[in-house]
């Protein structure tokens, strides 16, 4: 390999690596930090049993959380109307779950509206996190 082609390859590989590093999105939080965050806001610790009930109940609507995320949410789920695959929600079964604060906030907002027709309280989110963290392989 000539010096020039070697340099070209190095430049190209650096670009590819840089792209790869950017697409592996920023992990700015952890499931445990999210549990602490919601517990602190609610002023009481999350409760796994209450979280499980909330997760599996329909709350008077058509769907429960488990309609798309399965019960228990330890396997790949499927969007109830579009069939789009959904990665397991329980952190022990999905390393990326609850590692991006913006994503956590967005999906709690959207999905609570779909299931409970309102946003969830900090206490409810703490309960759900406690439940999800209690699920182990």
């Amino acid at each position, binding site marked *: 390999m000539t010096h020039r082609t070697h340099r*070209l*390859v190095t430049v190209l590989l650096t670009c590819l690596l840089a792209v790869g590093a950017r697409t592996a999105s920023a992990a700015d939080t952890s499931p445990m930090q999210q549990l602490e965050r919601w517990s602190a806001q609610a002023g009481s610790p999350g409760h796994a049993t209450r979280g499980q009930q909330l997760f599996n109940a329909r709350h008077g609507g058509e769907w429960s959380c488990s309609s798309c995320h399965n019960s228990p949410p330890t396997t790949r789920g499927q969007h109830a109307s*579009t*069939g789009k695959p959904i990665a397991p929600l329980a952190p022990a079964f999905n390393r990326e779950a609850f590692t991006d604060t913006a994503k956590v906030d967005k999906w709690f907002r*959207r999905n609570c509206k779909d299931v409970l027709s309102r946003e969830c309280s900090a206490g409810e989110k703490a309960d759900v996190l406690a439940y999800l963290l209690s699920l182990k392989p």
Partner: protein
Amino acid sequence: MKTTFVLATLLATAFTAHADSGRAMPAQVPKAYTQECAACHVAYPPGMLPAASWRRVMTGLDKHYGTDASLDAATVTQLSAWLQTHAGTYKRVSTEPPDDRITRSPWFERKHRKVDPAVWKLPSVKSPARCAACHTGAEQGDFDDDRLHLPAGLSAQQQRAWRD
């Protein structure tokens, strides 16, 4: 030198894929489109709806086919611009379908006219909007007949109709 060859081949393949006229998906798909829209449903190619339909979809995200899919203003602006640029570029897309649903477009209905209505209701299909139930390349904007896959649960008669 070998590495250079591999890279050159990779680049050549990438450009060939872009030039493939069978692809309904534009070469550049914004990350937000995949992250926000395609998190819940297949990444519908923007060419499959006319510009006016996309405009209505993007200004009514808080009431998006039964769910609140609202996004921050910057993302809405970015995605709307991209959708407008590529709107209506797919085959024979001109009329605005009822409800701005791709599946109600005349060309869609014509293409699927031989599909038994019961097939759409199979658990393996669920809805005409679930392209990937049969079109294995749907996620990449590839709707070529050669890559169709038979959904589970078709009756013998429906299977015969499929092969016709």
